[in-house]
């Protein structure tokens, strides 16, 4: 755009954007700050951003019957320590990693051959399959959570990894995206592979897959971000068995029975859950923005 370039206008734009940025940053600031402060500092709103880090008494430690002198803690260590001790947070994080990765891998295994067939093979019924893909694009999986939950309950699969993964194994959007991408790959490449004696099966995994890496990267980010952050679906299908909790479920459980003393550890947990994606995003902004806005390519 032909921007208005007077220094006054430029300064004004920055002023507006900075005000907006402060509001956007506010909860991140609160989260990080509280995750490092002692309960007292949180209640009285003192101690600045990182708190004074004065040693505090761990009440729970005293309740366990330890002498007071053994129960002094530095707030930041107390908060992050409690986050891991009070709940099996490591387990939750590993569950999260396992579930998001499984979902992505299965989505690719299902979508890639189908996208290849839809874009490069001629067969009777191809248009019907593609029409089906287009219709299914309209269906948000969260919206049909209830009937999917019923089906899983009928076969006794609630409270399992399968329940967390199965509904997401089909990414209609992934099929659509890969098909569009494969359309741009010249047929000559595939013909050459056929003449070299490659089977269709190995063409998919040895020719098309490497070609699709840029698109797959973007799709991976799209998929992983969505499922790492998802709270609704795990909330529906994991009813009480903590060994299948994903990170957001763990955090929510933590807040359930919490009193004021636990603000620090809760905020520490939130920080731990949010940090991996934020850091990855800051390191590879362009890729992430591309991936998250993928759905804009429809």
């Amino acid at each position, binding site marked *: 755009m032909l921007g208005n370039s007077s220094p006054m206008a430029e300064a004004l734009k920055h002023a507006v954007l900075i005000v907006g940025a402060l509001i956007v940053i506010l*909860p991140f600031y609160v989260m990080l700050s509280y995750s490092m402060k002692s309960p007292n500092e949180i209640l009285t709103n003192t101690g600045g951003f990182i708190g004074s880090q004065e040693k505090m008494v761990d009440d729970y430690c005293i309740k366990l019957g330890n002498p007071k002198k053994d129960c002094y803690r530095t707030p930041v260590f107390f908060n992050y320590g409690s986050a891991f001790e009070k709940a099996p947070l490591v387990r939750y994080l590993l569950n999260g990693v396992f579930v998001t990765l499984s979902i992505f891998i299965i989505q690719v295994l299902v979508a890639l051959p189908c996208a290849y067939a839809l874009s490069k093979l001629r067969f009777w019924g191809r248009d019907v399959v593609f029409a089906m893909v287009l219709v299914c694009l309209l269906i948000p999986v969260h*919206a*049909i959570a209830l009937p999917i939950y*019923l089906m899983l309950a009928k076969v006794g699969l609630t409270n399992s990894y399968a329940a967390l993964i199965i509904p997401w194994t089909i990414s209609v959007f992934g099929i659509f995206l890969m098909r569009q991408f494969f359309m741009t790959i010249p047929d000559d490449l595939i013909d050459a592979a056929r003449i070299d004696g490659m089977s269709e099966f190995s063409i*998919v995994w040895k020719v098309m897959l490497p070609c699709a890496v840029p698109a797959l990267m973007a799709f991976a980010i799209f998929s992983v971000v969505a499922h790492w952050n998802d709270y609704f679906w795990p*909330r529906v299908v994991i009813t009480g068995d903590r060994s299948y909790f994903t990170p957001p479920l763990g955090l929510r459980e933590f807040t359930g029975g919490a009193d004021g003393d636990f603000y620090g550890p809760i905020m520490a947990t939130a920080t731990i859950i949010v940090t991996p994606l934020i850091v990855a995003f800051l390191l590879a902004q362009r890729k992430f923005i591309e991936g998250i806005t993928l*759905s804009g390519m429809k």
Partner: protein
Amino acid sequence: MSEQTTSVENPPKRGASLKAAEARTRLISYLFCLPAISLMIIILLVPIFIAGVLSFTDYSLGNTDFNWQGTKNYERIFGRSSYQKMLWASATYVLVVVPASIGLGLGAALLINSLRRFGDFYKAIYFLPVMAALLAMAIVWDFALHPTIGIVNKTLASGCGTLVEGFFSWGWIPGVNGAESWYSTSCADEFPHWLGEKKYAIWTICFIGIWQAVGFNMVLYLAGLTGVPRELYHAAAIDGVRSGWERFRLVTWPMLGPTTVFVVTITAIRSFQVFDTVEALTEGGPAKSTYVMMYAIFEKAIRENLVGFGSAITIVFLGFVLIITLSQRYLVERRVHY
């Protein structure tokens, strides 16, 4: 799957082998599509059918039998005041979050796009909420908005009795009684329980929704803006378009038409699905003022096991989503340039 080669390398027996090759391609194609097709049917299509059927029943999980209810479940949704409140809460949320987050997202995109430097810096910051788990951030907002110790009310309270109160009580505007303003009365009494008062709760939930969606919309608009050819601005300048607003109205906004249609659709569908903030912060209350549809489905069908009724809400919900997407398709096909 067997390792087969197509017969391109054996030209002699042309007729027969071509047919065989075709049959083989067809077989392979079906094999390749089979997993996707079966999953689409089992995971996406069958559930809609199930919800449709159950919505006319009083089925509960664990029961072997159910009774047909006719359209009673639907009549309840549209007839009972607590479910009318549900429709209202969802409608309010969508109708507030969609325009606000799109307006702010477009504003941010235009500002960032016209900056000479630091554009990427703002872009990264505004995008942060999109990356963060909404549930985690909802819990943080809960703390920030805590009526007594939350940073928001503390900050507001610290402005009391200072120039800040003087300004925001609007008493300096002729004819306005500053003492009656929201800010001054709040100072004298107390600042709101943002999530605990019926008057504020739904707006607070909307605010968090907007906070999260702005960055996403901004990025889509930034992408849209790169697609506006510079020549159009030059042409407009030659035609005597001088002011920034005219330039926006005559060139930028029409060129962003397709982006806007898309942004509206996706924001609307996402807003309809709001759940995390409501579940974690208000549980539909106070007085059902934040009882949005996804939360209603969760509470009625999964917690209270009123599956039939929950299915009816699901179907109504799908109906709304369908209306939104079909209007998008319609607008896209008409190639909207306002």
